[in-house]
């Protein structure tokens, strides 16, 4: 029951965000908002496909390629959004900022090794690439926005993206220990917090566009 409520809540929040992002993208004819729309829509589609399969067949898909592709695409759109916003500054990272973002791949591949204990090898490796890419760009954006006036704007977007990934990983790790009640609660809390990060992207982008 709680899972259904939680899924419905997430679907509702992402659905509303998708519509707002689409309306804003059409109104402002802004590419960044279009990217955000695709990010939301892809995430929503991935979840919807999962739920539709449950509704129609009473079971989750055996081959998860469709949902997986949708979620990977969502990550890619967020990556593109952060990259485009970062490029607008016309700056390059220097010193530690040049190397530190690569830690994202260390983290994502480390987590992939952990997930491989339970799941498949290929899917976890692909997930690590996409998640790593997104975390890398978020960290890069944080370093890019150091010591400049626009700091608050880009860093807000990148911080929200990092939070999103932390909660995404939190719920994934918790779901690995599904039989434990503590882990189950942790999963719901992480997923709920991740849902709450979705509207924050719009707030971040609003600042970006205003800049």
């Amino acid at each position, binding site marked *: 029951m709680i899972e259904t409520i939680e899924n419905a809540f997430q679907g509702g929040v992402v659905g509303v965000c998708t519509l707002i992002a689409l309306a804003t993208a059409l109104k402002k*004819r802004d590419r960044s908002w279009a990217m955000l729309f695709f990010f939301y*829509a892809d995430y929503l*589609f991935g979840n*919807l*496909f999962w739920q*539709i399969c449950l509704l129609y067949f009473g079971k989750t898909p*055996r*081959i998860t390629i*469709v949902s997986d592709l949708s979620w990977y695409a969502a990550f890619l*759109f967020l990556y593109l959004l952060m990259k485009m916003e970062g490029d607008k500054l016309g700056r390059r990272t220097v010193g530690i900022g040049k190397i530190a973002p690569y830690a994202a791949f260390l983290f994502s591949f480390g987590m992939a090794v952990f997930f491989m204990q339970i799941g498949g090898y290929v899917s976890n490796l692909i997930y690590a690439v996409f998640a790593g890419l997104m975390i890398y760009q978020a960290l890069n954006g944080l370093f890019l926005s150091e010591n400049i006036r626009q700091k608050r704007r880009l860093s807000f977007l990148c911080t929200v993206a990092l939070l999103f990934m932390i909660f995404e990983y939190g719920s994934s790790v918790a779901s690995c220990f599904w039989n434990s009640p503590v882990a189950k609660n942790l999963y719901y809390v992480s997923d709920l917090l991740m849902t709450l990060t979705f509207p924050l992207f719009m707030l971040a982008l609003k600042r970006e566009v205003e800049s």
Partner: protein
Amino acid sequence: MIYIENTYICLVAPLLLVCLILRKRTGRSLLFIIFGMTSCLLSAYVSTLFAGLTQTDMAEATYQISPAVEEIMKFLPMLFYLLVFNADRKSAVNGMMLIAAGFATFENVCYLTANGSEDLVSLLIRGFGTGAMHIVCGMVVAIGLYLLWEHPWLRAVGTFAVICFAITGHAMFNVIVGRPGLSLWIGSALPITILIIFYLVLFPLTDT
């Protein structure tokens, strides 16, 4: 058993011949339609191959394997066009839509050959529903190409992401229309509605 290769030859032969006579732009448009039909034919082979490899039954393959294979195959002629002919943004967008239309046409013809042409209502649902779905998916990829045209890296990454988006939409459509009755009606009406909204909202924007 239907021989889709034979159907393909019958459909494509006159189009191919007329391409030799037509002027550059019209001939190119027709070629995109032929490429769409060819993609549909090849998709059938590739989907069957992957269904066999993953030991998936027919029903599961229609919503798990076919959408991914079809959307990727639909994009391959466009990829070739972009890489070899150094195409401009507008012709790439138009080409993508024509490929989708060609794909949908050939798929409908195959459906007609396999299931007969007696039931007009189901053919109408099939024709408009599936046709609209393929065109909506093609349109999504075209919009992605249009939006992300400026930088090659942006175009490459963005196009992959947009194709993934189209695959999921396609897969959901296949699940919904796979069940007869109200589900089939709703599933078929969805892409048509999206197409109408596109026409009403997006077209006035592109004019301005």
